[in-house]
């Protein structure tokens, strides 16, 4: 126990990230269940308005800041040194600090539940001036800002650490054009974090100063401006969604190449498109503000459309990697294919809402809820599960059950689509997001009932996953060093890898050293 609490080993830290992420995932999942229970029927009174507002705020905050983002960096912690042939990350103690800051930050946000007035109830976006109401009783809002400042400092530290590791600690022969795509995506993500997260820190710090020291940054009565908060928030917020997806692009690239028995198709295009997405994502923030009447809609619309081009390059490259391969549909590959099918819908709806005349209807409606769940849920979350199945044997030396894994995938895939397909139609019918109740008009009762049933299927899938992990821990069927016949360097060492990763310096002469 003490060994784990005090460790600076990147593999142990990586595994602890995964464990804490799964704990926060369970909490966020229960919150999602509460949301769907409340919305199962119109005019429901299960949760009150204030309880519901806290629930959806905590669900979104936890999934974004405490599940999807830290899983990417947690897995990177475990994998990046292994993939480039390094003994550890460049700054091991900074790495441990990052992990514990993330955990404490997450607990700080949830500590709001124990305060008078409850946790933050302003959505994960916490717009000003709404976030400045109830200063006296709203300690939950302060804990939200402080907790997320801690997680963002953690993310910045981890990004610097991983960048230095990739640039300075590669094994001989591991040139930049040979490092695996997952590591490349982490490089792009880390650079993006360094540019975007300071803006979030500024927005949250200004909101805290407004709340307690009367600075009036966002208060128009004193010359402040509420739109300024939106600019600062989304200058972080849009790059953030790519922080939530780029590492997952990397994970499924490795999975697809392995199970197609082929090299990654268009390796250079994969790398360039990651940086193109990261770069463009810094210039699209105001597409979250098309309805404010305060920004240049055509400019932000055009740049947003352009992001579809590098994303399309990635899609064709994934298909190109499968093309004429020998595809085995293992559980990780099923999740990768699920990612492709779901994320495509997220991408297409994303291009739609980048067109302001469509966004004028879709914005802040359930259409948007559908869109971002198809990218972050159907996309990132499916890749997360695929990555867990894929790298679990490397982390622990034994494997998860393939047969149960198929059931987990089937339940999650059916449940996910049953939950979120109806939401697009709810939005088009006029259902706003973040409402605790809705009237019994049109198709809304039917669509919501289907969505709630779908969420129950997803819950079953998630429960089955944890059962499967427990069974695997009890059975401990040895996996061997390279159970999948994968190509990257982490599969050339033992499972689990020894301290400092490699017994001898690995020889790297190609992009697929383990072939």
């Amino acid at each position, binding site marked *: 126990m003490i060994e784990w609490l005090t460790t600076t080993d990147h593999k142990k830290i990586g595994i602890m990230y995964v464990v804490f992420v799964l704990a926060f995932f369970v909490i966020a999942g229960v919150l999602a269940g509460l949301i769907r229970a409340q919305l199962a029927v119109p005019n429901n009174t299960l949760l009150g*308005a204030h309880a519901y*507002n806290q629930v959806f705020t905590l669900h979104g905050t936890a999934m974004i800041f405490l599940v999807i983002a830290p899983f990417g960096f947690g897995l990177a912690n475990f994998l990046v040194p292994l993939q480039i042939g390094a003994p550890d990350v460049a700054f091991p103690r900074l790495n441990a600090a990052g992990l514990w800051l993330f955990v404490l930050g997450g607990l700080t946000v949830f500590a709001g539940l124990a305060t008078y007035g409850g946790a933050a*109830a*302003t959505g994960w976006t916490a717009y000003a*001036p*709404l976030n400045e*109401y109830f200063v006296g009783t709203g300690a939950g809002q302060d804990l939200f800002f402080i907790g997320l400042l801690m997680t963002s400092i953690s993310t910045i530290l981890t990004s610097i650490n991983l960048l230095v590791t990739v640039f300075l600690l590669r094994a001989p022969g591991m040139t930049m054009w040979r490092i695996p795509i997952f590591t490349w995506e982490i490089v792009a993500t880390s650079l993006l974090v360094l540019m975007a997260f300071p803006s979030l820190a500024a927005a949250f710090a200004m909101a805290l100063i407004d709340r307690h020291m009367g600075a009036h940054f966002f208060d*128009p*009565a004193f010359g402040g*401006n*509420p*739109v300024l908060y939106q600019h600062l928030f989304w200058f972080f917020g849009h790059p953030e969604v790519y922080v939530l997806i780029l590492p997952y692009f990397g994970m499924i690239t490795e999975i697809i190449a392995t199970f*197609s*028995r*082929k090299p990654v*198709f*268009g*390796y*250079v*295009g994969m790398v360039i498109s990651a940086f193109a997405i990261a770069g463009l994502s810094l210039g699209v923030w105001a597409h979250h503000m098309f*309805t*404010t*009447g305060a920004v240049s809609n*055509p400019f932000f*619309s*055009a740049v947003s*459309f352009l992001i*579809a*081009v590098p994303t*399309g*390059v990635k899609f064709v490259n994934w298909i*190109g990697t*499968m*093309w*004429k*391969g*020998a*595809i*085995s*549909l293992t559980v990780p590959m099923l999740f990768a294919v699920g990612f492709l099918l779901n994320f*495509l819908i997220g991408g*297409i*709806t994303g*291009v*739609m809402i980048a*067109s*302001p*005349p*469509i966004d*004028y*209807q879709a*914005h*802040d409606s359930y259409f948007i809820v559908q869109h971002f769940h198809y990218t972050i849920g159907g996309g990132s979350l499916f890749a997360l599960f695929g990555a867990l199945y894929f790298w679990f044997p490397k982390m622990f030396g034994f494997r998860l059950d393939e047969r149960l894994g198929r059931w987990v995938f089937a339940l999650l895939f059916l449940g996910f689509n049953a939950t979120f397909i109806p939401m697009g139609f709810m939005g*088009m*019918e*006029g259902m*706003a997001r973040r*409402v605790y*109740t809705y*009237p019994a008009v049109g198709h809304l009762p039917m669509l919501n009932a289907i969505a709630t049933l779908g969420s129950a299927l997803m819950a079953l899938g998630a429960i089955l996953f944890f059962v499967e992990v427990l069974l695997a821990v009890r059975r401990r069927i040895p996996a061997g060093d390279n159970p999948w016949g994968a190509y990257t360097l982490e599969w050339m060492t033992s499972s689990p890898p020894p301290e400092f990763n490699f017994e001898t310096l690995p020889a790297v002469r190609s992009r697929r050293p383990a072939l």
Partner: protein
Amino acid sequence: MTDPASLQGVAMRTDWYIFIAAGVAVGIFVYVCIGWCLIAYRDRSGRVAEQFENNKPLEILYLVIPLLMVFALFGVTYAIEMPIDRVTGPPNRIAVTAFRWSWRFEYPNGTSTAGTPTKPPTLYLPVGRSTQIELRSDDVTHSFWVPAFLFKRDAIPGMINVFDVTPNRTGRFVSRCAQFCGLDHALMSFVVEVVPQSTYARYLAGNGTVTP
């Protein structure tokens, strides 16, 4: 999709249709490609994967085609959005003020109504005539959303947002606040009632006491 109740809404529905058509076409194409790979290239006994890793002409092609598509979609967007965003300054101007958690409507002759979360107010608009809406907020950021117009615009404290709307058919349209604004955001609804021009004139003449 709701049947649009304004001229601007009809234009925006065209934008929806174009994007849905393009999206469905791209979606089917990609799904067929993925499905083909999974069926034709399944790992059967004796199957050996071909070891190629790039194809320059193809890679340039799938960079150029999406770029052209994006340019076309932007052209469509721009052409449809510009007339919607144009403010022409028609004489019928209504001041709409959002507050937690209802709305206040003030008509050109001084007639004014306001609602509460449990008693949503009604906004009367004349059919076939352009009306200018001036949006304000008394407290936090709200959003004026009429799903039947396929349109919303935010009401932001400290600034006035102005837009034109030309209803093209009469009817009662349930509408609401779209931007989360705190506790009872879910109850912050209102009704837009589009009425014949003579009825609208009668409503104003009666100072809002005579409901049409």
